[in-house]
């Protein structure tokens, strides 16, 4: 880590970019302050849709934070040199995304001021409380892992630390999936398939975020990524996208097999208005098939295509989460199966949700926090991947 690559960074640009990220984060904070002052009454959320747009952003960032660590795991646990060189950046991105996601999650609570209550009153039977432990544990473990990577004296500890992080990230994403898997009464959830689905989704989303960050850092430093490395990582993204598509398809096909779930699937996939559009156009076409084309088409697959594919994967992931979280709440509970119930409170009807601007700004604010942490971290800790040190022709081999 003695490289002086970052000395070429133009300070002015760095400070301008960091200030822009801070401003986005600040706007997010102001939006949450507005919602805190006025209550959820000023958001699009209501008694039926209790988790809205901020949760879409928060869950994306938390799942991607786990997935982005794949790069570090492949390096530290499986000993691939190309990935090992990228492990510090991977760890930093994980901390940034986790911080951004958790900030959004906390500020979207009804009472974020009661954070201390959440910390001091712990209900061991709550999957939500388990996640509080999993998130804080992830922060600590990744910080230790980064320390072993950056401090030469502790380099030999990076493998056991990497193993711990590797195991923890699986448990963390399992915990995120379980938040939904434990919901037996709602048609969209309550499936044991959800934790593995979230894990595979995290692979694709995390790697997409990593590739974007890596491309930005290389472009900033006017360096070019070795085409062999680009190809390797690009192909990995392709495999992850296919894996994610497979599990999402398995989830929906399983639901379709159960007669009592077909109404919900029909709503999500065919006649639910915004939701089928977001699912088919947003996630399947733009978020999966188009990135696959950009990755695997013989005449494409260069840096620009990979950047575009990564961006599309991220957009697709937000579309999928919108359908999964908000669509799942919008479909009414089957309290009177076979009957059409109504009331003056909208019971038995498809719930309406229109995201409000503050909700959206809070979500974007979380991304601002993640970007700020990454930008400052990359500069302070000099985390540009150093492939030049690798012997020629051994990309990807153990060292």
């Amino acid at each position: 880590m003695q490289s002086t690559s970052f000395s070429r960074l133009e300070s002015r640009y760095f400070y301008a970019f960091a200030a822009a990220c801070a401003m986005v984060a600040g706007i997010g904070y102001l939006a949450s302050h507005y919602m805190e002052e006025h209550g959820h009454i000023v958001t699009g959320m209501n008694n039926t849709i209790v988790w809205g747009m901020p949760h879409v952003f928060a869950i994306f960032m938390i799942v991607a934070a786990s997935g982005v660590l794949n790069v570090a795991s492949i390096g530290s646990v499986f000993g691939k040199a190309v990935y090992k060189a990228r492990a510090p950046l991977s760890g930093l991105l994980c901390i940034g995304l986790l911080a951004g996601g958790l900030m959004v999650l906390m500020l979207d609570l009804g009472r974020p001021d009661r954070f201390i209550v959440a910390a001091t009153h712990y209900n061991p039977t709550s999957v939500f409380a388990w996640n509080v432990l999993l998130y804080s544990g992830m922060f600590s473990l990744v910080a230790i892992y980064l320390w072993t990577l950056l401090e030469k004296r502790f380099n030999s500890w990076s493998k056991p630390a990497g193993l711990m992080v590797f195991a923890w990230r699986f448990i963390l994403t399992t915990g995120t999936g379980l938040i939904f898997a434990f919901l037996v009464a709602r048609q969209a959830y309550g499936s044991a398939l959800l934790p593995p689905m979230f894990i595979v989704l995290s692979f694709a989303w995390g790697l997409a975020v990593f590739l974007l960050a890596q491309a930005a850092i290389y472009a900033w430093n006017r360096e070019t990524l070795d085409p062999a490395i680009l190809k390797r990582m690009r192909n990995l993204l392709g495999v992850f996208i296919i894996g994610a598509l497979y599990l999402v398809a398995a989830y929906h096909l399983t639901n379709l097999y159960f007669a009592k779930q077909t109404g919900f699937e029909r709503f999500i996939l065919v006649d639910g208005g915004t939701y089928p559009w977001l699912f088919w156009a947003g996630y399947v076409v733009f978020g999966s098939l188009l990135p696959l084309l950009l990755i695997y088409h013989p005449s494409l697959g260069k840096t620009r295509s990979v950047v575009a594919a990564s961006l599309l994967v991220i957009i697709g992931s937000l579309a999928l989460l919108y359908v999964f979280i908000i669509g799942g709440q919008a479909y009414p509970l089957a309290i009177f199966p076979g009957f059409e119930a109504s009331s003056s409170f909208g019971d038995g009807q498809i719930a309406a949700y229109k995201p409000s601007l503050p909700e959206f700004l809070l979500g974007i604010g979380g991304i601002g926090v993640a970007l700020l942490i990454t930008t400052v971290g990359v500069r302070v800790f000099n985390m540009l991947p150093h492939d030049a040190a690798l012997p020629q022709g051994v990309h990807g081999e153990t060292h």
Partner: protein
Amino acid sequence: MTQLALIIDLNVCVGCSACVTSCKEWNTSGPAGPLSDRNPYDADPTGTFFNRVQTFEVGEFPQTETVHFPKSCLHCEDPPCVPVCPTGASYKRKEDGIVLVDYDKCIGCKYCSWACPYGAREIDEQQKVMKKCTLCVDRIYSTTLPEADRRPSCVMACPTSARLFGDIHDPDSVVSRAIRENGGYALMPEWGTQPANHYLPRRKTSITIHKDQLVRADNPLKIDGKLPKPAKQEPTLDDVTSW
């Protein structure tokens, strides 16, 4: 263990929503309040209500009938909203089985709302904590009220006495007898949550009337047999005398 509950007779409920409004009135001004509203007098009103009447039709036209189904928290004996609460703000009282929310411990994560299969949880959009039916816990134990008034507000307000209140674990209570003798059932027992609140089903009362029952059988003139037997079409004594 005591398990207080509401028993709602769907055979008698007319869907007037008096229980909804009386619940709102009592609780919005009590310790459970305020139950915030948004645009209460506009086209698109929303608000926090502990009790709601849902309506659905049964049968095929023209053989249909409308069922009004009041629903609030069912105070499940194994409530799914309690174990999921990260801070333990949702809890079930040991002494009477009422499921309550400690507003001071609720962080407003709304996860209990996801876990409740009955949609009974309500977010107070102003106070930003989760709320639900308390079985008027501040009323049923109030020593400032006359004994007869120590019942949930909705029970007091029901004009047809469709709502009963009591301990379903006491086999001799009014509510236990009502469940036992009138086919009382719990909503969605398949979830295994054992809702304490029960519903009495719609019931049809029918009797068989034979032809001879339409003819007056106790006419003393007929028993005597000495007097001329009036024809069926002729007026009876009831028609021609003042007694």
